[in-house]
C-alpha cells in the first residue's frame, strides 16, 4: 500500500483513540463490573455464597455473635450469578471497574449481621435480618419463629403427641 493511500485512509477515519482517563470509558450496556451488596436489604442468608463459583463471597464468623458476608472483589469473576440468586434482591451488578489497589485488604467489603439466639436452647440460629424477612413474608406463629429448627421439631412433636394422647382417651 502506498503512503498516499495510507494517509487517505487515516484522514478519512480520523482519530479513534479514547482519551481515557480524560474521557469517559467505552462501557457497553452488557458490561458487568463489581457487584454491590445493599446492607439495608441483605439477609445474610448465604445463597450468594453458595452459588459464587470462585468463592469471592464468603460468610465468616469471628466472634460467634455475628456473621459477616464478605465480598472480595479480587477474586470475583463478574458473572452476576449472585445477583440472580439473591432472594432479597440485595445485590446489584454495577459498572465499576476502577478497582486497582495497592493492597489486597482494601479490595474487601463486608456486611455484618447480628445473630439471633433460639429462645429455648440458646443456640445461634439465624440473622436478625433473616428473622425479620420471615416474619414479614409468612404467617408463622410467634412462639415458633424464635426457635431453632431442632427445638421447633421437639415442641411440635410434643404438642402433637399431647393431642394424639388426648384423642385416644
Amino acid at each position: 500500500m502506498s503512503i498516499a493511500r495510507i494517509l487517505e485512509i487515516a484522514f478519512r477515519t480520523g482519530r479513534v483513540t479514547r482519551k481515557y482517563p480524560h474521557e469517559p470509558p467505552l462501557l457497553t450496556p452488557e458490561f458487568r463490573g463489581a457487584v454491590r451488596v445493599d446492607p439495608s436489604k441483605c439477609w445474610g442468608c448465604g445463597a450468594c455464597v453458595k452459588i459464587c463459583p470462585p468463592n469471592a463471597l464468603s460468610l465468616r464468623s469471628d466472634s460467634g455473635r455475628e456473621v459477616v458476608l464478605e465480598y472480595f472483589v479480587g477474586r470475583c469473576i463478574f458473572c452476576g450469578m449472585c445477583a440472580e440468586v439473591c432472594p432479597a434482591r440485595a445485590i446489584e451488578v454495577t459498572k465499576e471497574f476502577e478497582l486497582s489497589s495497592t493492597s489486597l485488604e482494601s479490595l474487601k467489603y463486608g456486611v455484618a449481621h447480628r445473630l439471633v439466639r433460639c429462645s429455648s436452647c440458646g443456640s445461634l440460629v439465624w440473622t436478625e435480618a433473616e428473622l425479620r424477612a420471615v416474619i414479614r413474608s409468612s404467617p408463622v406463629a410467634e412462639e415458633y419463629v424464635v426457635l431453632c429448627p431442632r427445638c421447633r421439631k421437639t415442641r411440635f412433636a410434643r404438642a402433637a403427641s399431647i393431642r394424639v394422647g388426648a384423642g385416644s382417651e
Partner: protein
Amino acid sequence: MSSVNLARALRAIKRSVWVYHLNSGSCNACDIEILDALTPYFDVERFGIKLVGSPRHADLILFTGPVTRESLPKVVRAIRAMPRPRLILVLGSCGVSGGIWWDTYSTIGGFKKLEEVLRENGVEVDRVVYVPGCPVRPEAIIYGILLLLGVVEQKVKKVEVVASES
C-alpha cells in the same frame, strides 16, 4: 541492594514506562486485553508505555495468570531478571488471588503465594498494584498503571458495614 529510592525512580520513569508482559498460565483473555490497551484505540504510548521483549529491559511487569506449577520457576527467573526497582502490575482476578482457579491442584493461587516464593528466593519486589477484573478492561489496566505511578488516587478501600433495616 534494598536501598532503592522508589519515589525518585518513579519520577524518572513516569513518562517512559517500559513494560514486559508475563503470562503465568492465564486463560488468555487478560492477555488479549493487554494487547487491546496497546492498540491505537487505547494507545498507551500516550503515557510513554512501551512493550519490550525481555524482563531485563522492563520497568514494569504486566503479570497475568494464577501461576501454574509448571510456570512457577520460569516466573521467578523472569522477575529476578528485572532490574530494581521491580514494579509489578498484577492483572485479573487470577493474578490477584487465583480467581476461578483459586483451589485447583495445578496452580499456586495467585500473586500472594508467588510473593512468598519470591521472598524465599531472595527476590525483592518494590511495588505491586492489584487490578481485579475477569478479564481486566483496557481502561482498568491504564488506571492501574496510573495508580502505580501515582497519577490517580485509589478509589477502593476496605469497608465493613453493619446490616440495617430498610
